[in-house]
């Protein structure tokens, strides 16, 4: 079998061009391997070989991101590689970001198997570990040998299109994709060990880091409802008929603000849902089922509430990232505060 063709990306420092004073070095393509590439070539042996090395200064890359990325990508593509490796960047921040950026672009734009490596606290790690395989390294080039030892088997697996196992087995940073594997000890024994460590204040590694669940403590009850202004907000996707702002049916990238002045009842002719995550028939028949304007108008008339706020805010909760949802709410919450709204009824589906 022919050796796999590898293109390697390194910065000006590892290319022995210079340190900070040469950090604005423009992208350059050289044949064969340079610097850390030698260690890779040795480790790959007969399986693979670095055919070309792309060098770019860290400052140049980060300050001319789009242009540098395009140039570097073009250089990589010209070599028609089977595999792309960037770094290791260790704890060099700009180098790490460059390695992550290029590896992610090679993956998404060229579709070539690829990986990089850096120290866990390198800013490039958090930015890219969920996009590309990043092998964790020590914080300096002292960890080169160890990095190569871990990167080579993973690189070969990637190049051969083999299934990649759990992060702790294949030595990449956890990337949010949970993979099963068999441990050496059974779970109960691992639990006893972990508890003993935890009780003794010794270090231990949880097998499942708790995700951040954002919990909101409810505000105190509104005492004087008869004079309160109440707003309606929904993640159920209720929009004026025709969905004028084109809120997506899933993974919504926006929210809408719509006027309820004079609207006493939502009808099949006037409102609908944009939501793609539930059977829309009943919401489209009568959108009050999700956004209860009719009932709010009744309560207004009966004097139970002061008034219904003039505008309602709406988005689609279906598959929408928590981060986005949070941003929408923090924006329109300001509007609600400005309008002296006392309480919000938030409906979901």
């Amino acid at each position, binding site marked *: 079998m022919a050796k796999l063709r590898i293109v390697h990306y390194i910065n000006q420092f590892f290319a022995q061009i210079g340190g900070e004073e040469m950090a604005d070095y423009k992208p350059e393509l050289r044949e064969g391997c340079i610097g850390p590439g030698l260690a890779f070539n040795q480790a790959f042996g007969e399986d693979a070989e670095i055919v070309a090395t792309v060098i770019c200064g860290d400052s140049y890359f980060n300050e001319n991101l789009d242009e540098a990325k395009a140039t570097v990508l073009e250089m990589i593509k010209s070599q028609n590689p089977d595999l792309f490796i960037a770094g290791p960047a260790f704890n060099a921040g700009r180098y790490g970001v460059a390695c992550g950026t290029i590896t992610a672009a090679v993956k998404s734009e060229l579709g070539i198997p690829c990986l990089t490596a850096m120290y866990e606290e390198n800013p490039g790690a958090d930015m890219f570990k969920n996009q590309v395989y990043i092998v964790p390294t020590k914080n300096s080039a002292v960890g080169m040998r160890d990095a190569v030892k871990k990167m080579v088997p993973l690189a070969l697996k990637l190049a051969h299109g083999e299934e990649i196992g*759990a*992060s*702790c*087995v294949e030595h990449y940073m*956890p990337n*949010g*994709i*949970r*993979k*099963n*594997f*068999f*441990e*050496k*000890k*059974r*779970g*109960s*024994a*691992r*639990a*006893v060990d*972990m*508890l*003993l460590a*935890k*009780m003794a204040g010794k270090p*231990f590694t*949880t*097998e*499942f*880091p*708790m*995700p*951040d*669940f954002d919990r909101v403590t409810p505000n105190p009850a509104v005492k004087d409802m008869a004079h309160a202004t109440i707003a309606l907000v929904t993640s159920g996707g209720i929009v004026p008929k025709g969905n004028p702002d084109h809120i997506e049916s899933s993974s919504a990238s926006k929210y809408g603000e719509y006027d309820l002045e004079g609207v006493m009842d939502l009808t099949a002719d006037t409102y609908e849902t944009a939501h793609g995550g539930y059977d829309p028939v009943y919401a489209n028949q009568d959108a009050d089922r999700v956004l209860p304007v009719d009932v709010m108008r009744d309560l207004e008339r009966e004097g139970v509430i002061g008034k219904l706020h003039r505008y309602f805010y709406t988005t689609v909760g279906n598959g929408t990232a928590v981060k986005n949802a949070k941003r929408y709410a923090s924006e329109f919450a300001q509007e609600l505060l400005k309008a002296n709204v006392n309480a919000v009824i938030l409906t979901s589906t």
Partner: protein
Amino acid sequence: MKLEVGYIDIRDICFADSSRLEDGVLYLDKNALSEIVLEDKNISKVEFEIAKPGDSIRITPVKDVIEPRVKVEGPGGIFPGVISKVTTVGSGKTHVLRGSAIVTTGKIVGFQEGIIDMSGPGADYTPFSKTLNLVVNMTPVEGLAQHEHEHANRMAGLRIAAYVGELGKNAVPDETRVYETPSIKEGLEKYPDLPRVAYIEMLQSQGLMHDTYVYGVDAKRTLSTIITPTELMDGAIISGNCVSACDKNTTYHHLNNPVVHDLLEKHGKELNFVGIIITNENVYLADKERSSDWTAKLAEFLSLDGAIISQEGFGNPDTDLIMNCKKVEAKGIPTCIITDEYAGRDGSSQSLADADASATAVVTGGNANELITLPKLDKVIGDLSVVDRIAGGFNGNMAEDGSITVELQAITGATNEMGFNKLSAR
């Protein structure tokens, strides 16, 4: 409480004219077994099969797995409050027919019953591919309600296990072990410098066939309480549930609770195993609050330095798990929780239905959504036609070549949350 457990290693099982245990070989009389099952008028038909490790056999839909045991000396009998009188067990002497198991199967009850493959890739995920299994294949009478059907299967399995266990009463054990847990005062005096650790065992009690019984009491009607490790070894807790097969604690798991055994292993050396707090997993919020409050209260009352919390099932019970963890941690008692994950088939989704920052030490039994293809095996015991309906199966999962594709969820014991297995995820 002190219990001497004599392990009799079972080397083989076969059918014979009379039931007996000789030199580690179980000889079983089908007629006698049939009579025991058919004394329940709700079961119209029963067949018995033997499934051994390595056999090309698939058993499905599996309801429960039970290890045959017998009380040899001391008060009470096996499965107290259910098969034997309700006398407190856990002391004296008990014989275990180690390496054998009773597996109940037959017409599907609900959807949450499992698969045991005795060979092939599926065998790696279930502990019951490594046991010599007597499979009880039952057909209920027509028109039997689901909960009555479950009850009939459950009781028949326990009766058969008790009958088979009885055969080992006079056998000479291959290994004898003594399990002893001291009283609170004795423990304090004996191990003044060792951390006091308890096991908080959550019992499935969501109801509608998701039940566990403690001395015959339905766990959803119980308050969190204390039980000793050796009581579990005598069958004080039995499974009566139809939770997804992968994280269902079968009666076999309760009898051989791995957390209990691994804590006993370090008892008196690295820790002082104070006892077990059992607590339920009811669906109502008030029940969840009460049970977890009581769990934390008992943990504090026992002056614990640490606790291991195990779960059964997923989704709704995740909230009980997190409440227990959070409230025990809030008492200043470190915990380690054991759970499993539903991270989607590609592993990218949120694994648990609840979370809390205080759950810093988590052991996982793996992602139950991960898919596995199980090749055709020569023989099926039970009913293969339902594998697209059991939890973890899906429409169109049976290929023309006889292979089936399921989530690990469908394999009995695959992602056990007592930490019975080595499977994990990262």
